[in-house]
């Protein structure tokens, strides 16, 4: 009997948990591609996507947004009549699995491009096959350094390093002369941890301040020690540069020590998640800023509203509406619009790669600056964005776009000059 | 059916090897039954088989007419069959008092204390050592404790395997009368003993076992008069 009761309780709870996922928003009709309302029925174009669903964190909202966009596209004439068959795969944070999936998508399924990728392991594990097969990856979200140092990998997001830098720059601008010493906390994941903090630290040092990078083992449970370690540096600001799940205990530990009023707290775009303010609680109201990479969800601008409309009409209610979702939407949009300009009969991997490389200026009101792919040896087109503040259980944008002043971006800026994007 | 513990045609295997073949033994209440035989003849296996610690492969074991095959050891103990295994085994990490209490596990809570008192009256030596760890006691004291544990469970049948194993004769002399007294109180005692003279002196019935089979069963006096039976069983 007890077992049955337990089962019922569990089932009820599971249901409740699933249902409480997201909240619906009324929106106007979503516009995708040709926007002709005709379902595409031709020979499908295969596009793949690799994300991490299972594992330490659910890292898939970018792929989900791309999937929603392509669904919308297929309902609206597709690529000049040809539907896009979008294959989203879960690599479970496992490089082996990621490499198997890349082989499957590219070699077995014959994908012409990968879009909306969002994974900690994909960039590293699959760099070889991407270059070898010369397939272009228009990723939604790149995290490790590898994602920003490949010829064939172009993420629409800014990356944790740029994001951390912007977060600190914003604090320095808000409190002029007050931010002298910073601490940047990151998990010791190879090619993520230290690298993601170096931009912020080198920027503050350039301003005459000092910075410290603390990397920690994600398996460690003792967040208080981590916070105390940060406090030992006597910082004026701390950037919590971790995936959202890991950030929660760090903020909890800081709350316990009553640190919100003693110094300034910020974090990169990985914390930009609608659940985040609720997870860290009321205490942090107005006391945390979060970098956004892209503009705020409630900006009420045409493309922003279109993204929300696409998600509402073609996505699941439980799909997150976060910055990564925006990135996935943008990645899908730029790909679709590029393909639309091509001869539908001549769409193959080679031509798609070439076409995507020739994207030199893609504009959206979700982005602060025009985005591009280009044929440079690496891609980090998004390095300008706004910052949000935690307020009333929400993330409210603070205002101006900030351009990350990270010396690592010098080559990117130089390339931008050659294609006429920056001046 | 009738009173008594009956072992009927029992086969038993230990780690894949047959150690008992069609063994028939009957214990009557109030009597001491001696089971003799050389090492490895299967006496201890029989005790463990009756007590439920080893599964029997064939045959039947009845306690007062009730079949007990397949019951767990604790259930058989609760039916009134108390086994005292070879080698004065006690719960060495536990105190003497705890050992005694554990032996009363299947008794109603209120009856445990009186039962322990009875056992302690039988072995007053243990009273002084109630709080000491039983593992630190001498072999003789441990054997007394093991017997006391059996007494606490108020057995109808007591299976005593090699009570004198490795003990000084003085101690053995102390234990034997206890068994006799139990038998007088109506307990059916199975006595396995390497000191055959002790066993034969106090037993009412004797069985001799050889290589997993009962080869003799009858009056102990017959064995005393006719030692060749015993010698052939031991010295074959």
């Amino acid at each position: 009997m007890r077992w049955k009761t337990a089962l019922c309780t569990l089932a009820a709870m599971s249901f409740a948990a699933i249902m409480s996922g997201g909240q619906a928003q009324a929106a106007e009709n979503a516009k995708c591609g040709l926007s002709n309302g005709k379902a595409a029925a031709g020979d499908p174009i295969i596009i793949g996507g690799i994300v991490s669903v299972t594992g330490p964190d659910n890292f898939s909202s970018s792929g989900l947004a791309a999937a929603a966009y392509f669904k919308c596209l297929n309902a609206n004439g597709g690529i000049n009549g040809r539907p896009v068959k979008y294959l989203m795969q879960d690599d479970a944070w496992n490089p082996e699995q990621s490499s198997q999936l890349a082989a499957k998508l590219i070699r077995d399924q014959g994908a012409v491009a990968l879009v909306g990728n969002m994974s900690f392991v994909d960039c590293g594990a699959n760099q070889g096959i991407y270059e070898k097969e010369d397939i272009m990856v228009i990723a939604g979200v790149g995290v490790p350094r590898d994602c920003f140092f490949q010829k064939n990998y172009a993420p629409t997001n800014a990356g944790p390093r740029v994001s951390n830098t912007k977060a600190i720059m914003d604090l320095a601008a808000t409190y002029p002369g007050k931010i002298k010493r910073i601490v940047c906390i990151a998990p010791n994941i190879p090619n993520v941890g230290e690298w993601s903090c170096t931009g912020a630290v080198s920027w503050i040092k350039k301003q005459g301040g000092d910075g410290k990078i603390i990397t920690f083992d994600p398996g460690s449970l003792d967040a208080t020690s981590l916070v105390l370690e940060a406090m030992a540096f006597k910082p004026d600001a701390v950037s919590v540069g971790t995936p959202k799940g890991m950030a929660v205990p760090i903020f909890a530990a800081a709350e316990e020590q009553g640190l919100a009023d003693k110094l300034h707290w910020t974090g990169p775009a990985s914390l930009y998640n609608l659940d985040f303010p609720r997870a860290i609680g009321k205490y942090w109201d107005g006391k945390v800023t979060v970098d956004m990479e892209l503009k705020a969800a409630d900006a009420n601008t045409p493309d922003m509203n279109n993204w929300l409309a696409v998600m509402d009409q073609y996505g699941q209610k439980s799909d997150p509406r976060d910055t990564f979702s925006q990135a996935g939407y943008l990645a899908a949009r730029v790909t679709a619009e590029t393909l639309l300009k091509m001869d539908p009969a001549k769409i193959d991997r080679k031509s798609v790669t070439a076409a995507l490389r020739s994207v030199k200026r893609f504009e959206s009101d979700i982005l602060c600056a025009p985005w591009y792919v280009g044929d440079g040896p690496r891609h980090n087109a998004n390095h300008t964005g706004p910052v949000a503040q935690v307020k009333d259980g929400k993330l409210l944008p603070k205002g101006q776009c900030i351009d990350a002043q990270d010396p690592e971006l010098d080559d990117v800026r130089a390339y931008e000059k050659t294609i006429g994007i920056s001046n | 059916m009738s009173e008594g513990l009956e072992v009927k045609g029992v086969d038993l295997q230990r780690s894949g090897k047959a150690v008992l073949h069609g063994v028939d033994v009957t214990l009557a209440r109030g009597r001491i039954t001696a089971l003799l035989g050389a090492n490895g003849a299967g006496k201890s296996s029989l005790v463990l088989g009756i007590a439920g610690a080893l599964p029997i492969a064939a045959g039947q074991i009845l306690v007062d007419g009730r079949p007990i095959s397949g019951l767990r050891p604790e259930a058989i103990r609760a039916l009134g069959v108390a086994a005292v295994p070879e080698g004065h085994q006690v719960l060495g990490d536990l105190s003497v008092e705890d050992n005694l209490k554990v032996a009363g596990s299947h008794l109603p809570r209120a009856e445990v204390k009186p039962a322990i008192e009875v056992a302690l009256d039988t072995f007053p030596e243990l009273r002084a050592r109630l709080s000491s760890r039983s593992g630190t006691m001498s072999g003789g004291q441990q054997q007394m404790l093991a017997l006391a544990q059996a007494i606490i469970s108020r057995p109808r049948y007591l299976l005593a395997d090699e009570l004198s194993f490795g003990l000084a004769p003085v101690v053995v002399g102390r234990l034997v009368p206890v068994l006799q007294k139990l038998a007088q109180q109506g307990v059916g005692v199975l006595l396995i003993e390497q000191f055959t003279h002790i066993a034969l002196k106090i037993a009412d019935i004797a069985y001799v076992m050889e290589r997993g089979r009962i080869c003799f069963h009858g009056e102990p006096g017959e064995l005393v008069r006719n030692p060749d039976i015993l010698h052939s069983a031991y010295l074959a």
Partner: protein
Amino acid sequence: MPDFTPFFVSGLATAATYVLSAVGIVVLYRASGVVNFSQGALGALAAFVSWSIVENGGPAPLAWCAGILVSTVLAFLYGRVLAPRLAFSDPVMRAVATLSVALILLGFMGYVWGELPRRLRLPTDTISFELIGVRITATRAVAFALAVLATVAVMVFLARSRLGLQMRALANNRDLSALLGVRVLRADGYAWIISGSLAGVSGILLADLQRLSGQTLTFAVIPAISAAVIGRFSSLPATVAGGVAIGVCEALLTPVPVVGPFRTAVPFIFAVAALLWMQRRFTFVYR
């Protein structure tokens, strides 16, 4: 030289949750001979259930009770239904079998709740006080008190109660205890219940002190097992000392420059050292 006091105080609370888990592991191992790798996963499940009830507007105390009840019932069911089928297997296999339970729970929690930033909030979080320069929420104090209380309660239970005595008897010699009339399966069942409820309590506390994540809470079992190893899976005081030592040392190493990054190895080093020390005498293995 860094100031170690705040780290010491902060390590104590983490240590307390290790202790709670470890005590459950030791009680279970003593009575039934099973090392339970699913202790952490059971705790995580309890935390998720509590969280869901609170999220849906349920009263908090009911939520905690429901969570602990779920972990307790699951542990009991495993102990009563599945564990006996492995009774004749090697102890290692029995431990590995509990790992598969952890996997099932992990998958279930991932499927139902997913990995999102969550934290289970307890009312005690809002109360805090200062102790040698470190602010401590009442939750930490409660965790520590619960750890002490649970340990003492379990020790008293084992020492005084009839069932506790039977568990000690089982731990000493399982076969002989059965011959002496100890109802083995019943005592086993209670051991699973104790360990399941301790898993629930420690899971809920960890979900508050750290975060509510299936993966993190499931693998929190490792330091708990290390603590149990230090207690040789038998001595509760040694287990408590082990848990506290592991938690505190891990925290104390944080500000030390070179070894800091390696501090998560503390449970392993403690356990290995403890095992080697215990087994320092050479013995032959008869079979």
